[in-house]
């Protein structure tokens, strides 16, 4: 094997210019592949974080809906036959989650769960002069919300942690604050659906990047939210769950729904179309990358073919002096693979450097306050795929020519002179 490598090396070095060009072809395509995918993935991740990072994987809540089991079903006298029931209405059942303390406790012990954040969702009117603006008030646990949904990253002014420290404080959506004409440390008037009026102090502005959404959102602490509603401790309308394996979210949602007797919504159902978009973007970048690699594969194929025509005599003499066809094949496969390995390795490094370069380019947009440069992903998976493709494509490119070389009949060459 050592001998075969040394022969391959000599053949390579004898035609080092062509070899270099072939390797550069591989390097170029791997560079483009890695940086393109990194860039594409970076954008995907940014888009994901725009929606998915702030969306719980599973959300437990009580939906206002008509009861699935009507009283008539329960009566033994009417068990047989089919029931036609008209004008079924939803009853004014409780909107909070029953026995929320125990549910939270159980979820925190669940191995599949990364974290849980309780939430109180209510509607309120913000009063500015004679105008009433309707908006949602989210009662949150600032610490949990931060850990699971990066809440503080989207607070563009003020301090998110003041929510817990200061009683009767509120963080407004930036667009909402603009239409209410309030600044930090000023008070806003708020009327709940039940008609109670409160004055809350603004401690921060929040911006999600979607203006219409920012116009109708505000955040306060759990205890303030309970105060607004006049509810006691343990009142929670939503439980937001972040799970370890996002693909298991639908199954978990069904399980929790059954177990805790609440409604449950999973992220896949919520964002199905969003996932499709990410998938198609990745697919396109993989297709472009593989096309590049195929082209460079043809380059290697050409160069090896030329080398074999040039080295017919050498191949004949190697065979005459005792090298079997498979040895000759190995020599040329080795040549192809070393072009692939070195070209690919250089490509991975260049791709990484190019990614670093793209990462430095400024990219500012008002809807994305946390992003200052173009997003680039350094996911090792991209590099693994790039490296593997470079090896596979050069192997395939080397396979045909080396098979041809292994089948050269030395008699034909030696006689032909």
């Amino acid at each position, binding site marked *: 094997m050592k001998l075969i490598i040394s*022969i391959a090396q000599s053949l390579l070095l*004898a035609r080092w210019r062509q070899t270099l060009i072939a390797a550069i072809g591989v390097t170029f395509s791997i560079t483009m592949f890695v940086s393109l995918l990194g860039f594409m993935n970076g954008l995907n991740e940014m888009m994901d974080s725009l929606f998915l990072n702030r969306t719980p994987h599973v959300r437990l809540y009580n939906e206002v809906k008509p009861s699935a089991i009507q009283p008539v079903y329960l009566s033994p006298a009417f068990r047989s036959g089919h029931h036609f029931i008209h004008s079924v209405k939803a009853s004014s059942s409780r909107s909070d989650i029953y026995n929320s303390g125990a549910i939270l406790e159980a979820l925190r012990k669940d191995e599949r769960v990364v974290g849980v954040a309780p939430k109180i969702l209510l509607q309120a009117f913000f009063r500015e002069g004679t105008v009433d603006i309707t908006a949602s008030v989210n009662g949150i646990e600032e610490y949990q919300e931060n850990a699971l949904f990066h809440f503080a990253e989207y607070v563009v002014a003020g301090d998110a942690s003041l929510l817990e420290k200061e009683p009767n404080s509120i963080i407004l959506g930036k667009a909402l604050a603009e239409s209410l004409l309030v600044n930090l440390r000023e008070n806003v008037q708020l009327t709940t659906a039940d008609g109670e009026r409160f004055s809350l102090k603004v401690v921060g502005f929040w911006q999600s990047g979607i203006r219409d959404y920012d116009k109708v959102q505000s955040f306060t602490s759990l205890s303030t939210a309970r105060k607004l509603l006049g509810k006691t401790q343990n009142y929670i309308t939503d439980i937001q769950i972040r799970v370890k394996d996002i693909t298991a979210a639908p199954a978990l949602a069904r399980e929790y729904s059954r177990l805790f007797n609440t409604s449950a919504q999973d992220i896949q159902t919520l964002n199905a179309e969003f996932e499709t978009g990410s998938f198609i973007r990745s697919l396109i970048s993989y297709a472009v990358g593989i096309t590049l690699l195929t082209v460079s594969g043809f380059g290697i194929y050409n160069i090896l073919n030329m080398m074999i025509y040039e080295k017919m005599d050498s191949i004949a003499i190697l065979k005459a002096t005792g090298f079997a066809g498979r040895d000759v094949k190995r020599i040329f496969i080795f040549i192809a693979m070393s072009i692939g390995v070195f070209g690919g390795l250089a490509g991975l490094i260049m791709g990484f450097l190019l990614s670093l370069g793209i990462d430095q380019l400024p990219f500012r947009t008002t809807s994305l306050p946390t992003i200052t440069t173009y997003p680039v992903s350094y996911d090792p998976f991209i590099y693994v795929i790039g490296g593997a493709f470079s090896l596979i494509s050069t192997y395939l490119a080397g396979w045909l020519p080396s098979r041809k070389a292994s089948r050269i009949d030395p008699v034909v060459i030696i*006689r032909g002179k």
Partner: protein
Amino acid sequence: MADIILEARNINKYFHDPVDVKVLSDITFSVNKGEFVAVTGKSGCGKSTLLYILSTMDTDYEGELLIDNISMVNKPEPALARVRNEKIGFVFQFHYLLNEFSVLHNVMLPGLKLNRYPEQEVEHRAIEKLNMLGIEKLAHKKANQLSGGEKQRVAIARALINDPCIIMGDEPTGNLDKKNSEIVFDIFKRLAEEYQQTLLIVTHDQEFASRTHRIIQMEDGKILL
């Protein structure tokens, strides 16, 4: 009783393109150890074709071929390559050295392939062979810097590296001038007489043939007795 190194039994060979032509018919002969044999005949009489069959490179024939008393019929290609490596040394009309390698490395290649000795030992033996042929000074030159006569001597050194049972030559002096032909012939003669090396040389040079131990005359694909 001398040992038989090479034996051909009833070898027939056809060319199929464009029509079936019988190029070798019923070739039967044997070569003993230490013999210096010349195969001669006019151009086109089939002597080179015979040599390629005897060398195991051409496997498209009928009949039986034994090298060192082992039949070569129906052996797979890698096994034949091994036989060529171990038991046969080649010298061609054109020199066929690998230009990418030095003279020494060219001589060493079949030895490294055989892998019977470690690399240092193979190198040592290669230098020995070059010494024997008086070309040790060329050892570190590139193969394409040599003259024709020098290349042919390097080719002989390469043929000798694995101590083969038999050396086969296809017009080894055919492309050399008088002086170099003489040198090459003297080397063959010396190998045969001093080292008891078996040699089977195909040549159309009658003078060359007449100075060997035994002449096999061929005509129209048959051996003349």
